[in-house]
């Protein structure tokens, strides 16, 4: 057989298999996990989503979809009533017997890692890409993500040459009240470290602090996330409920940065690099374009 | 027959009852009198097995009381306490019907007995009412009907212990109650009743036990026990004792 025919046959074969694969791809998706839903949308699968969990708040359009509840307390029948072909979620999805009931009903159940590191993200994206028939897009997306994170790293390293890492505290509150402080082994800690900050809190997990401790730590930068409010409202509420914060260096210098709380759950999401940039801008003022 | 010998009860260091030797004879109503704190309720408590005796035993027939159990004991010994608390809206006949618990006499017979016991307590007209809707005196009569039903119709070998069954009753019902008790004894049961009213005791009891400070002061017929000097010594009350014009039993009048 001549080379061109072989190539032609190969192409036809590839196209045919691709077409066959496409018709086997799941069309009705249910997603349990904020970051996953965002990646599905980023890979062009937003139109395939028929139901999402309560942590899936981005993009805005997802809020209009039927809600399957909290990702750890799913209802088998509820999900099945949406007639999905695939259920995607992190290992936090549950309760476990529900997942087997859904599998038994013939729905594909795919679990993804919620680990906040790049290898996990890469395998997640590859997997999602396969399921959506968008493998190319997935690897491109990962590459640009990696690039952005590398750039971020470079920028931070450079900035740290001329400026010291600021002491930072991350507060998670609800309408300003009763804020929890993010310590080690939290995604907030992961974020602020990648942004070049130095977490003044040494405990593990999210814990409340006494007001005295907050003042004695005297952070240079305050990062806060509010579960109930956003924007100026959240900022105002934070200082209204915790007036003592106004006496910190951070408040006096106006170095109070707001963080989107949905970034803190479910592993690495697509909006992360932008948020990191914003944090670094705040940690190392004047280094924005480096 | 319920009896005890040299019964003694202590509470901590204090001796609350001592030197009691007593036999509750079939067909007899024994009244227990005495000022407050004399040990009357303690005696009743010991005789029905609720209080443990520090000295002396209680016998029911040929066995120690503590060896009698469950339904067998309940068929021979019934106790009416001074106060009964029941916070649930049972019907009157259901409360009285609880007295039939130790028996397997069947629904029909139980209903008959309940009705008869209610009539004996002059509470027949309360049939069908809710217990919680009754007055204190009416409730007391219902509980009397219950213990009567427990031993109905009353015969030799059965003992009934009553702790102030007339405390909340009006004069008419004080008499009808004690009359019912009297009739029970007339059928052969042994009855011990704690009373405050000396005249009621004089009228309805065959023998009287007078207690003071935990000790028996007298155990005899009403004529012998109810004497002015004795009553003054025990109760601190000056009294005249006369004879009832129609019935002949002692009549105690405060001076």
């Amino acid at each position, binding site marked *: 057989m001549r080379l061109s025919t072989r190539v032609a046959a190969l192409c036809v074969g590839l196209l045919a298999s691709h077409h066959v694969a496409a018709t086997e791809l799941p069309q009705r998706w249910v997603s349990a996990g904020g970051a996953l839903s965002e990646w599905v949308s980023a890979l062009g699968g937003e139109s395939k989503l028929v*139901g999402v969990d*309560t942590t899936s708040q981005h993009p805005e359009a997802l809020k209009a979809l*039927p*809600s*399957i*509840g*909290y990702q*750890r*307390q*799913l*209802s*088998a*029948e*509820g*999900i*099945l*009533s*949406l007639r999905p072909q695939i259920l995607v979620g992190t290992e*936090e999805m549950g*309760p*476990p*017997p*529900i997942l087997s*009931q859904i599998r*038994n*009903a013939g729905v594909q159940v795919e679990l993804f890692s919620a680990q906040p590191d790049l290898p996990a993200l890469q395998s997640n994206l590859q997997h999602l890409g396969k399921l959506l028939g968008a493998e190319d897009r997935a690897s491109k997306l990962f590459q640009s993500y990696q690039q952005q994170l590398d750039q971020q790293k470079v920028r931070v390293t450079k900035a740290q040459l001329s400026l010291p890492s600021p002491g930072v505290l991350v507060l998670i509150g609800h309408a300003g009240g009763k804020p929890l402080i993010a310590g080690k082994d939290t995604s907030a800690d992961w974020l602020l470290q990648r942004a070049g900050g130095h977490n003044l809190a040494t405990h593990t*997990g*999210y*814990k409340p602090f006494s007001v005295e401790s907050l003042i004695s730590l005297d952070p240079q930068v305050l990062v806060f996330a509010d579960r109930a409010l956003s924007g100026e409202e959240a900022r105002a509420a934070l200082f209204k409920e915790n007036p003592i914060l106004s006496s910190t260096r951070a408040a006096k210098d106006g170095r109070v940065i707001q963080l989107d709380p949905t970034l803190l*759950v479910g592993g690495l999401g697509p909006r992360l690099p932008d948020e990191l940039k914003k944090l670094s801008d705040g940690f190392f003022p004047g280094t924005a374009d480096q | 027959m319920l009896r005890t010998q040299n019964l003694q009860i202590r509470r901590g260091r204090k001796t609350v009852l001592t030197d009691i030797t007593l036999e509750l004879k079939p067909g007899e109503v024994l009244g227990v009198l005495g000022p407050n704190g004399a040990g009357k309720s303690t005696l009743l408590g010991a005789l*029905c097995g*609720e209080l443990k005796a520090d000295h002396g035993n209680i016998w029911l027939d040929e066995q120690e009381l503590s060896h009698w*159990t*469950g*339904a*067998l*004991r*309940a*068929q021979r010994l*019934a*106790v009416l*306490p001074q106060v*009964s*608390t*029941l*916070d*649930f*809206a*049972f019907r009157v006949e*259901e*409360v009285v019907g*609880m*007295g039939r*618990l*130790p028996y397997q006499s069947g629904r029909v017979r139980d209903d008959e007995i309940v009705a008869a016991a209610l009539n004996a307590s002059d509470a027949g007209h309360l049939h*069908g*009412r*809710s217990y919680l*809707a009754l007055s204190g005196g009416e409730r007391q009569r219902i509980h009397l009907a219950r213990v009567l039903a*427990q031993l109905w119709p009353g015969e030799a070998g059965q003992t009934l212990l009553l702790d102030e069954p007339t405390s909340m009753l009006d004069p008419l019902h004080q008499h009808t109650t004690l009359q019912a008790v009297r009739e029970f004894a007339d059928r052969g049961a042994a009855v011990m009743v704690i009373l405050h009213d000396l005249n009621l005791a004089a009228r309805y009891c065959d023998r009287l036990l007078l207690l003071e400070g935990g000790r028996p002061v007298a155990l005899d017929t009403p004529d012998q026990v109810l004497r002015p000097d004795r009553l003054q010594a025990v109760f601190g009350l000056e009294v005249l004792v006369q004879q009832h014009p129609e019935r002949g039993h002692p009549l105690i009048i405060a001076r």
Partner: protein
Amino acid sequence: MTVLVKPRALFIGLSVLCLLAIWLSLALGPVSLPLLDTLRVALRMIGLPIAPDGLEQAELILGQIRLPRTLLGLAVGGVLALSGVAMQGLFRNPLADPGLVGVSSGAALGAAIAIVGGSAFGGLPEAFGPYLLSLCAFLGGLGVTALVYRLGRRNGQTNVATMLLAGIALTALAGSAVGLFTYLADDATLRTLAFWNLGSLNGASYSRLWPLLLISAGVALWLPRRAKALNALLLGESEAGHLGIDVERLKRELVFCTALGVGAAVAAAGMIGFVGLVVPHLVRLLAGPDHRVLLPASVLAGASLLLFADLVARLALAPAELPIGIVTAFIGAPFFLYLLLRGRA
């Protein structure tokens, strides 16, 4: 004079209600199944030879999801109501509830230890997770109740008033321990704990169901036999003793049945409050306090209430689910208030 519902009418009414609840629990749900399919699957399940074509989904939904859930609801509702009756008899007070002897708080403590402790050890093992949680809750409930009972005993006699105080104290202690675990928990564990505390019939499966079914059946068959004795106990412990009842033994049985039953229910379905307090009360308002009627009627009423509550829990926010403890409170409390205001108390 309060007009009561006659026992026969009450039992017929409650049985019909319960059957209706069972049917609705099987027939309704977020997935809408055609009525005919439901009927055909139901008939298949009881052994009739009906062709299975096109019934796969219905069989899965009914057989694997709704039927175990219905059974769980029946068992939990029945045993919680029954335990409520037992405790109201033990404490001779219509406001008593199984939680007074500490079984609920003990179960909550056991669950908290399993959830938080498990995550501290790197997460509960996948296969054992639910079993371990149930087991810890069950043991916690039994443990605290045993302690309360022990504290109430002196000289071979159980003092109910002391038990009550011990129950209150241990409940407070267990509560603060749970609070400590809550503090130590990370975000995700916290959510799991919170949801467990609200109760749910979600995820019912036959393998986890049978211990509860056995225990509930046992308790439901045993307690009604002590109905007359329970009636007499309401007169007072000494009065009941004089009527020939072994009061110490009866009290022991009541505490034991409650600990077993409520412990198993909480282990299987989390904390579902309110049923043990309200159902006996409602039945008493309708049919009087005689335990010969109250005990079996409470089983039927409790089971029905829980199944109806579960229907609301499943459908109100479908495809998500409401925790059932919220629904039982929402249904029970207003109805109870209404009855009280009407003056039937």
